[in-house]
């Protein structure tokens, strides 16, 4: 995104379904529920929405726009359903901005609906585990390298070798996010865990234990994007998009490990676009959403986007910086490790609520329907970051492919 679009677009509505294991709903129904919630949150009606975008990871794991728009009475002037994972939310926000800027539509809803527990599991079990191996997959799957955990593990292991990153440090990502989840009534897993509990959970593939891996859940999520101008007349304080980077890559997309260092991830390239376009630096960011499909991905993102030096991610995630009450809280909903797995949209939704100063914790509601936040972050307490003004969402598809967005309170 070039600088002249900075602050010209906003996220004006967010919505989701409950996070469940066994929702008993089709992805079509999850989508329409999440979208209806997001549109209502914006103070709009379906007739106001004329752009629809969605993403799916595996063919059949979502429902495409025609059915979903039809169910809601939305007539799109523009729609697109794309294949993508954890780098898609930010990428689609950028494309939505471009479509609106080009006059193709005015108000866009972006959704991601998935039965990640009941149908296609991101962990790769079920039918995908026994799918026939074709062509370039012979270079990986034939060796038992198939799941996301496998695809990222070379990077994680080399990082521990190069920088002496310790398992106790990595496990702190889960520990901190579990503390945050304990203040999120809608999180799937709200129990606080310790370093010992993470390290003694069973090993999946080095260096990832069970508790280093995100949850699998059934859910739908949606956000509404429109111009900052239009946003001023809607229900909430606008959350402005300062910059977006979508599906940015290292060299050699065919197999990114051919181009090292393999401990460097896409963020190292994406940051060259993100911060200049946003006009802010990492130091000015108050809170983050750092893609936590695994503990380790979160850590790497902080390094490559410049929140700390290369190799310092272990310290960054374990010295209190990312905790509620710390210098730059992260994944305040509990994230993908604890709240639910959404391929990243939930991390954007959480930061939108944070920037509105309206995190949905259990703080008391005042007469105007808004929460009176106590900023007491003890278990079961407040989840709101004080004076949240600028947030960064760091998305991840692979070590070699990522995305990011800077949001600011309008």
């Amino acid at each position, binding site marked *: 995104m070039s600088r002249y679009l900075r602050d010209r677009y906003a996220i004006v509505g967010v919505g989701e379904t409950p996070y469940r294991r066994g929702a008993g709903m089709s992805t079509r129904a999850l989508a329409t529920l999440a979208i209806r919630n997001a549109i209502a949150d914006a103070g709009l009606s379906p007739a106001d929405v004329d752009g629809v975008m969605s993403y799916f990871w595996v063919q059949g794991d979502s429902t495409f726009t025609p059915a979903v728009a039809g169910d809601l009475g939305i007539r799109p002037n523009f729609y697109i359903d794309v294949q993508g994972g954890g780098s898609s939310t930010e990428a689609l926000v950028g494309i939505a901005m471009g479509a609106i800027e080009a006059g193709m539509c005015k108000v866009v809803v972006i959704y991601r609906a998935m039965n990640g527990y009941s149908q296609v599991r991101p962990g790769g079990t079920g039918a995908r585990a026994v799918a026939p*191996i*074709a*062509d370039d997959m012979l270079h990986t799957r034939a060796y038992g390298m198939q*799941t996301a955990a496998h695809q990222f593990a070379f990077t994680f292991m*080399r990082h521990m070798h190069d920088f002496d990153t310790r398992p106790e440090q990595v496990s702190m990502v889960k520990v901190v996010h579990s503390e945050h989840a304990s203040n999120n009534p809608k999180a799937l897993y709200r129990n606080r865990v310790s370093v010992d509990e993470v390290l003694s959970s069973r090993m999946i593939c080095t260096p990832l234990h069970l508790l280093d891996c995100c949850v699998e859940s059934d859910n739908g999520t949606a956000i509404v994007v429109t111009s900052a101008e239009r946003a001023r007349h809607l229900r909430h304080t606008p959350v402005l998009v300062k910059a977006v980077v979508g599906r940015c890559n290292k060299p050699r997309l065919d197999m990114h*490990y051919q181009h090292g260092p393999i401990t460097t991830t896409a963020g190292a390239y994406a940051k060259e676009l993100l911060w200049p376009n946003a006009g802010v630096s990492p130091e000015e960011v108050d809170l983050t959403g750092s893609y936590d499909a695994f503990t380790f991905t979160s850590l790497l993102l902080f390094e490559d986007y410049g929140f700390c030096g290369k190799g310092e991610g272990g310290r960054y995630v374990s010295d209190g910086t990312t905790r509620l009450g710390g210098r730059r809280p992260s994944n305040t909903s509990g994230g993908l490790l604890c709240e639910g797995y959404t391929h990243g949209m939930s991390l954007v939704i959480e930061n939108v609520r944070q920037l509105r100063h309206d995190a949905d914790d259990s703080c008391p509601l005042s007469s105007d329907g808004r929460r009176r936040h106590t900023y007491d972050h003890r278990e079961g307490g407040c989840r709101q970051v004080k004076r949240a003004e600028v947030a960064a969402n760091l998305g991840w598809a692979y070590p070699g492919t990522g995305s990011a967005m800077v949001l600011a309170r309008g």
Partner: protein
Amino acid sequence: MPLELNPLEGHHAEYFQYCARGEFRLQKCNACGRLRYPPGSACPWCAQADFQWTPVEGRGTVHSYFEVHHAIQPAFKPFVPYLVLLVDLEAQKGVPTANEALRVVGNLVAADGRLAPAELVSRVGIGSRVQMRFTAIAPGLGLPQWQIDESAPQPRPWRYQE
């Protein structure tokens, strides 16, 4: 091991057919002379398409690895924990830039070609020297695998520790 394969096409088929004959060959670009891996339809450095399948020595150093303790694919469940290696080939290391190399994935196997048992797994980590051998995977298709290069001096490998 029982893996279900779709029919292979073009340069993928050729790569694994050479492996079936016990030959490790990579595409060498006719225009710029560089070897490429994994097999592809054009040269990642100069974009030209014409190449020759060129023999390359199957020797290298473990650049990274992971050890799978919870297998997803049924064919691998009996062999847990199994090692997946990312090996820097000696050939074309640090070319064209210092951070680039031909990095080939494979399992650690024992002398009999089967996935390495625990006592072999524990000897290998980052820095280990390995050499290539081939396993039959289907009629006319071979799979490159890695075994410890007993002829090379071995550093103490880096292994994951808790």
